[in-house]
């Protein structure tokens, strides 16, 4: 197995990471402002209750953020103002608090979405890198196997590879006996789907063979070198989604390319 080197960032990842850091920082500053505004509001409420309307404006400027433009709302009442002005001040602080909380929610949503995109970019990059840094065909199979488990979320699969005379044989299986794997390899509907070279998932896959979740032909340069038949998904993985299809597309093409580029000698060991 090739030695694991620290992964470099995929294209575009640096920009996403920088944006992520920026949003994290803004989100945390907004959280501080919300806490400060809450304190101010409590102080106003307390003074209002005591009849002493001595107020301090919220320390918005300290955060460096201008969420509510100064012209958009009147300043809270100053020290010595009456109870009515104190009430207006409390309403103003409440309004600012809600605005900032809304902004914070929006930023948090953007942050989560960005984290998801970064994770997907990382998954695609790792999948490709694992396949193309494989030095032997056994390592290509290792990479495909690990991608099925860790990216697609299944430990029930068969990897089929075409022999020199064209027949399919199981090169790797998990949770399937060799008899079950041979049934997959010899099934005429499965063979026809592999020959078509198109990814088959969901209901279409289960019509090929009961329990089959995805059939991923390994095809490159017009040549099919085999396929991956993915059966039951892990308990916590509900279904294969759009992003899984992207992963499967990469595995189909780059799995085949990596296999073709790997030394023949190791194929005997596979």
């Amino acid at each position, binding site marked *: *197995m*090739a030695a*694991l080197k*620290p*992964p470099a*960032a995929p294209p575009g*990842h640096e920009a996403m*990471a920088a944006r*992520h*850091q920026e949003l*994290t920082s803004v989100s*945390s500053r907004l959280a501080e402002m919300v806490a400060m505004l809450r304190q101010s509001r409590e102080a106003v409420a307390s003074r209002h209750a005591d009849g002493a309307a001595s107020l301090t404006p919220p320390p918005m400027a300290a955060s460096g953020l201008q969420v509510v433009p100064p012209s958009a709302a009147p300043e809270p009442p100053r020290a010595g103002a009456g109870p009515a002005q104190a009430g207006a001040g409390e309403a103003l602080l409440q309004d600012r608090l809600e605005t900032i909380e809304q902004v914070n929610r929006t930023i948090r949503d953007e942050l*989560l979405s960005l*984290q*998801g995109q*970064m*994770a997907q970019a*990382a*998954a695609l*990059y*790792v*999948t490709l*890198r*694992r396949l193309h840094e494989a030095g032997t065909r056994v390592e290509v199979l290792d*990479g495909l196997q*690990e*991608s099925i*488990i*860790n*990216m*697609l*979320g299944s*430990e029930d699969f068969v990897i089929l590879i075409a022999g020199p005379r064209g027949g399919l044989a199981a090169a790797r299986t998990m949770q399937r006996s060799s008899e079950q794997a041979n049934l997959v390899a010899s099934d005429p509907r499965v063979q026809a789907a592999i020959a078509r070279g198109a990814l088959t998932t969901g209901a279409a896959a289960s019509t090929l063979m009961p329990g089959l979740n995805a059939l991923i032909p390994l095809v490159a340069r017009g040549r099919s070198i085999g396929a991956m038949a993915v059966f039951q998904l*892990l*308990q*916590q*993985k509900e279904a294969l989604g759009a992003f899984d299809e992207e992963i499967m597309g990469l595995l189909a093409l780059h799995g085949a390319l990596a296999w073709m580029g790997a030394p023949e000698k190791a194929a005997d060991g596979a």
Partner: protein
Amino acid sequence: MQRKKVLLVDDSPTVLMMEQMLLGRQNYEVITAKDGEEGVAKAHSEHPDLILMDVVMPRMDGFEAVRRIRADDSISQVPVIMVTTRGETVNMEKGYTAGCSDYVTKPIDARELLAKLKSYLGDA
């Protein structure tokens, strides 16, 4: 501020690479080990702030590695999050009995993983 150190223990290069990418970008210092035995040794020598531990590994599985970490006074307090393919209750109970602090399931959900890390380590 000193970066928090996270030890990743997994026999799968794919998982290690993926976790390294996710955590490295979050400003954590990342160190790796390929099995439970190496994981225990690195926990001892590197004193990480948190360990992400796979369950099924050669030489020593994740449960045994956690038991050894908990039995060693110098590292017994470090939070250990198990990374498992099986989300069944019985598997989780085995992990908690061994002494793990929490768990995440494969395929790894980056947002869930980062949220758990943040809850144990605070902001990166």
